């Protein structure tokens, strides 16, 4: 989600030429997230094993976050076409609700992945992590840096898990998954720096979609087996 002003969380930022391209890049990431969800549920069904569930549910929530963001962007774009001044209240409300849905769904997805990465199964520990992360996510609805820092923290734990897995398995696929998630982590760091320069904004979005494309490459290798 674009880094916003203090008044409207999704106020447009980044270079003007990039408007619309960012939405397309997000849509590509969303489709790849959906493919990962489908793969997880297919393999869970084949193996009759719920070990695939956390990854599947995590990516499903991330996918729903992308949908919330794209739906909001499309709805706002339509209202803007009708006239910004006539629809300013509606646009502001849409932006707020859409951004809130996006933040809560995305952070929920990352929480599921981080809980899985940390192998936290104790109910009280799960409750503590979920409560703290959702509390920060709610603050993040009106403060983009908070939600980005939270994403970075959760993704760092996920990357750590994938690093340990890559060291243990030492297969091309395991290292590629790590690279993919490192790029997604890097994209959040770049978006944090977006207020400094538009280049960070563009770089963040590009790194994000490349990360997802790397994960798509892993899926393609799996399917070819």
């Amino acid at each position, binding site marked *: 989600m674009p880094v916003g002003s203090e008044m409207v969380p999704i106020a447009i930022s980044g270079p003007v030429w990039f408007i619309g391209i960012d939405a397309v890049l997000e849509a590509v990431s969303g489709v790849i997230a959906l493919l990962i969800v489908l793969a997880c549920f297919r*393999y869970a069904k*084949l*193996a*009759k094993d719920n070990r695939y569930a956390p990854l599947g549910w995590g990516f499903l929530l991330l996918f729903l976050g992308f949908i919330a963001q794209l739906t909001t962007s499309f709805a706002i774009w339509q209202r803007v076409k009708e006239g910004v001044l006539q629809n300013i209240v509606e646009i502001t409300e849409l932006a707020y609700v859409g951004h809130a849905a996006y933040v809560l769904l995305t952070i929920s997805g990352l929480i599921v992945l981080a809980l899985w990465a940390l192998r936290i199964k104790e109910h009280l520990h799960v409750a503590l992590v979920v409560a703290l992360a959702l509390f920060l996510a709610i603050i993040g609805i009106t403060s983009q840096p908070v939600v980005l820092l939270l994403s970075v923290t959760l993704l760092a734990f996920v990357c750590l898990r994938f690093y340990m897995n890559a060291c243990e*398995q030492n*297969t091309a*696929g*395991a290292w590629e998954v790590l690279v993919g998630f490192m790029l997604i982590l890097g994209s959040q760091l770049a978006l944090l720096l977006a207020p400094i320069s538009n280049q960070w904004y563009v770089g963040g979005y590009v790194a994000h979609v490349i990360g997802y494309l790397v994960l798509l490459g892993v899926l393609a290798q*799996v399917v070819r087996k």
Partner: protein
Amino acid sequence: MSDKKRTHLDIVHDILSAMRDKKEPIVPTHLLYRSNLSHDRLKIYLDELIQKSFIAETEDKAGKKRYQLTDDGYKFLQNFQQLREFTKSFGL
């Protein structure tokens, strides 16, 4: 076939492959030999595979237990390479 390096998925694959290769209901003794597991561990795996409907337990005329692959078991074997690659890549 070193048990130390085999994952849970690999062991399931070995047991199901033994049943597929036999092409008729298999006795536990033969499975013990083919799966390279202790009797107790094999029993745990067989219970799990029956519960997941990958195999079915039958009895021969002498009342001895035999095991055979089900359709779900065949599907698992057909997609095993994909399953293993996905599981290893994502550390599942």
